[in-house]
């Protein structure tokens, strides 16, 4: 487990942790390592900024999707109609 103990991330690991952070799935230790990485890596800072912004936009209550069960009902009803049609 030498890998998970080192303080310095490479950029891939940093981006992966950043993605996880967006869904609140990163551990505290991972977040600390991410922040250390961000101190010296401009590209990942940029990525993290955009990623956070995207999360904010997505979490706004404006973005609606049809709930899954209703969508399945719709799909079934539509398939029946489609068969009648053909």
């Amino acid at each position, binding site marked *: 487990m030498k890998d998970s103990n080192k303080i310095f991330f490479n950029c891939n690991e940093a981006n992966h942790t950043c993605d996880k952070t967006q869904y609140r799935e990163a551990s505290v230790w991972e977040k600390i390592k991410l922040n250390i990485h961000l101190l010296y890596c401009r590209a990942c800072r940029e990525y993290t900024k955009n990623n956070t912004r995207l999360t904010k936009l997505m979490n706004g209550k404006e973005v*609606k999707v049809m709930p899954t069960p209703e969508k399945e009902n719709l799909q079934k009803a539509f398939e029946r109609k489609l068969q009648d049609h053909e």
Partner: protein
Amino acid sequence: MIILSYFYSSKLALMPEHIIDPNKWIDSYSDYLYNYTITRVSDREIAQDLVQDTFFAGLKSMKNFKGEASERTWLVSILKRKIIDHYRKINSNKGKAEVRISYNTDSETEGDWLEERVADQFDRTAEDNLENEELGLAIHNCIEKLPEKQATVFKLKTLLGHETEAICNELNITPSNLWVILHRARTAMAECLKHNWF
């Protein structure tokens, strides 16, 4: 060169630019149409019904599709009619069961209630609503541009908030696989939304 361009133009004239294929409608457009509807009727069930009606009507009049606009544009134009019809219908029922509430019917003490005098600062303006609606549609636009797998994973994870494990089981992929797909999707989404919304 001239012959080539002639060939292309004649081919374009013969073939409609867009073809219609109802098999993918629900997957591709239901979220976009739902988003479009719910900002206009603000009731989940009504929105659901209207979207369903739209798909059925689209199926019925498929032969009228000329291929000048994209499928989605065409469906939205049907949906618009449905929404107008919906408002016409509820408008004709109006007045049958209308209840008016006022704090005070006496004209002398009108405005004595604090609620009547304080301006509602938290009221959202029409402009806010418009912007939010555009954001919703822009996001669905971008999701539509993603490859199918990325779109599915991104929607399940981000919009529906499913657990990583549940998605992995459902789609039969490993967690690391999921994160790679998700990473690509997020990068593409950020790129797509960058121009207008970042």
